[in-house]
């Protein structure tokens, strides 16, 4: 069943394949996300309860959404790397994790900033907030382990194991936090009660979500290419790739 993957599993092939897609994905990300944000900031109506502060939603919600799905993809990559001994899946950790970590950070930060006008506090030990914070720590842990080893391959394998252990924990964390918080205090601070969203707000939001997805893909592709090169630095094919433009990096 994995046989069909085989020709694609060659680092060189993947490198060039990603290189071919990268410009398109990047262009799409810039256009769609830019459009979505302009739409959201300039044209969407103000919220009748929150006024214009709600416009933070156009970054907060997409980044929060993808912060979690990216972690799942991280674990899937680690699993493939472990079970099918696909080195490149392990390397993908290094491409995926930083993007996920930054998305998580953005969700946290925009949430905190939004919380100040809405809830009157920057930080609250609310279930969602807490689990997002832990998610950030998990990302950083995977990254720290990946780069802690001087031998790239060993680092990739070790981080893969950690990513898998971490993902088993994600639902547990989620559940525990949710449950812990409601026990201690009533639902005074649940993430805001919103009226059913008007289309004039929903459509820019959906555009932004799509834009974030493309952005994540573009970032990951670019990093994956670098990572493939790093891991294969001493292989002959890399010599060809890098010597096309030894100094300027035109070939990127």
């Amino acid at each position, binding site marked *: 069943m994995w046989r069909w993957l085989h020709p694609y599993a060659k680092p060189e092939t993947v490198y060039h394949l990603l290189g071919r897609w990268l410009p398109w994905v990047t262009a799409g990300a810039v256009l769609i996300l830019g459009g979505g944000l302009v739409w959201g900031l300039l044209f969407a109506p103000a919220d009748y309860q929150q006024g214009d502060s709600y416009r933070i939603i156009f970054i907060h919600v997409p980044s929060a959404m993808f912060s979690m799905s990216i972690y799942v993809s991280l674990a899937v990559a680690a699993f493939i790397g472990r079970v099918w001994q696909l080195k490149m899946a392990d390397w993908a950790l290094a491409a995926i994790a930083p993007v996920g970590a930054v998305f998580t950070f953005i969700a946290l930060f925009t949430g905190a900033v939004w919380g100040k006008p809405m809830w009157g506090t920057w930080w609250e030990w609310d279930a969602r907030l807490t689990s997002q914070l832990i998610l950030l720590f998990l990302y950083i842990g995977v990254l720290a382990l990946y780069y802690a080893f001087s031998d790239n391959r060993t680092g990739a394998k070790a981080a893969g194991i950690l990513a898998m252990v971490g993902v088993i924990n994600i639902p547990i964390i989620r559940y525990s936090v949710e*449950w*812990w918080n409601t026990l201690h205090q009533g639902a005074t601070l649940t993430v805001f009660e919103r009226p059913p969203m008007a289309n004039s707000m929903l459509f820019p939001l959906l555009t932004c979500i799509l834009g974030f997805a493309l952005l994540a893909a573009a970032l990951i592709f670019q990093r994956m290419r670098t990572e493939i090169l790093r891991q294969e630095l001493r292989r002959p094919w890399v010599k060809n790739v890098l010597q096309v433009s030894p100094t300027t990096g035109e070939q990127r």
Partner: protein
Amino acid sequence: MTQPANWSALTAVMRRDLMVVMRRRSDILNPLLFILIVVSLFPLAVGPGPDILGRIAAGVIWVAALLSALLGSERLFREDYLDGTLEQLTLQPQPLALLAFGKIAVHWLLSGLPLVILAPVCALLLKLPIAGWSTLLATLLVGTPILSAMTAIGAALTVSLGRGGALLSLLLLPLFIPLLIFASGAVEAALVGTAAWPQVLLLAGLSLLTLLLAPFAVAASIRVSVN
């Protein structure tokens, strides 16, 4: 490959580790005293008001458990790695996961068990209301093995790095958090009079699951580190 050989290797690993730590009989007391001291730090740090103390008691005892697990983590594999024991272990005919289980068990004996034993004293020192005692004990009993197993995974992953505890703690503490929440939540529940057993049962289930899976994760990590 036969059962008895596996068993003797498991006990050999455990006996060796225990002997190294307890060259002297008096060393058995060290983990106990460590926990006592950590727990008695808190009344000093937060002031002795019984109302506050009682409310944070379960949390504090659980934090002490995490710390005692973390403090014992470096010794789990590091010296074995440096002196070549770890590579010999990977070459034994017994499954490495079995030997890893032995390591986890030793870690628990040296960090988890003392806490379980001392829990009543700690509860007394921190003025935990009586209603919470049995639940606290139950959570410790089923929860500390999870700590040991997770610590072993982290320690095995970082053993070849030799970089002090900061990286290790970074990896482990997020994984410990659910445990902390469930456990202190259970005691809280007992204190306010609602049923604590669902959480305790949940912890027990998690514990079993972890003990079943962790040895394999540890074994895989050791193989990665020894390379």
